């Protein structure tokens, strides 16, 4: 039963990732593009967690922690750059 649920969750998050790519390609404003990139990072973390369940190893959690940190820093620095024209003042 876990296998079916896992496949369903993989499908959902994969579809979500595709929708995010669509949003990045034709975003109405810059804010939407940043938001879509941030959502993409979160969906990638979820996919990595699901892949960890599938493989039964805990190796991928370090990777998803790193991706979470990188995604947060990149979102903040992108918005910071748009707001102030500078990242580190």
């Amino acid at each position: 039963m876990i296998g079916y649920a896992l496949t369903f969750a993989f499908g959902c998050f994969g579809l979500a990732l595709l929708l995010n790519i669509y949003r990045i390609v034709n975003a109405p404003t810059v804010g939407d593009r940043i938001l879509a990139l941030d959502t993409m990072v979160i969906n990638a973390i979820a996919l990595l967690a699901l892949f960890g369940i599938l493989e039964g190893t805990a190796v991928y959690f370090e990777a998803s922690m790193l991706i979470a940190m990188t995604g947060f820093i990149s979102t903040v620095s992108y918005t910071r750059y748009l707001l102030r024209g500078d990242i580190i003042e």
Partner: protein
Amino acid sequence: MVVEILISACLVISGIFGLVGSIGLIKLPDPMMRLHAPTKATTLGVGGALVASMLYFEFVVGRFSFHELMITLFLFLTAPITGHFIAKTHLHLGHKPEDLPPTGSDRPWASYESDEARAAVETPESAASEAARKG
């Protein structure tokens, strides 16, 4: 068996929430509305996936792992911050200060108030009257 049902329910719910968040990002009409879907629904979705993973490693594999809780905590802490920053970017790039609704006081929206203006307004008397007004 109970644990299996619990893990499967977590996985299905997390998948639905993640998908709803990304559909909301596409479908909602206004940029400020679009901000809601990914910051709330997708965060809950990834939290569900990580809880399912924690339950799986605890009860099926038999090895407790603390990492998922750390990732969930990190995401739940950073999601409001990124949401705030993106909302601020949208406000500054897409709106003029005159178009925004009134604040109800003689000061502008905090996001548009420069440091010099804030220092000029915040004299001790004004701070006391502000406190008195708020009760």
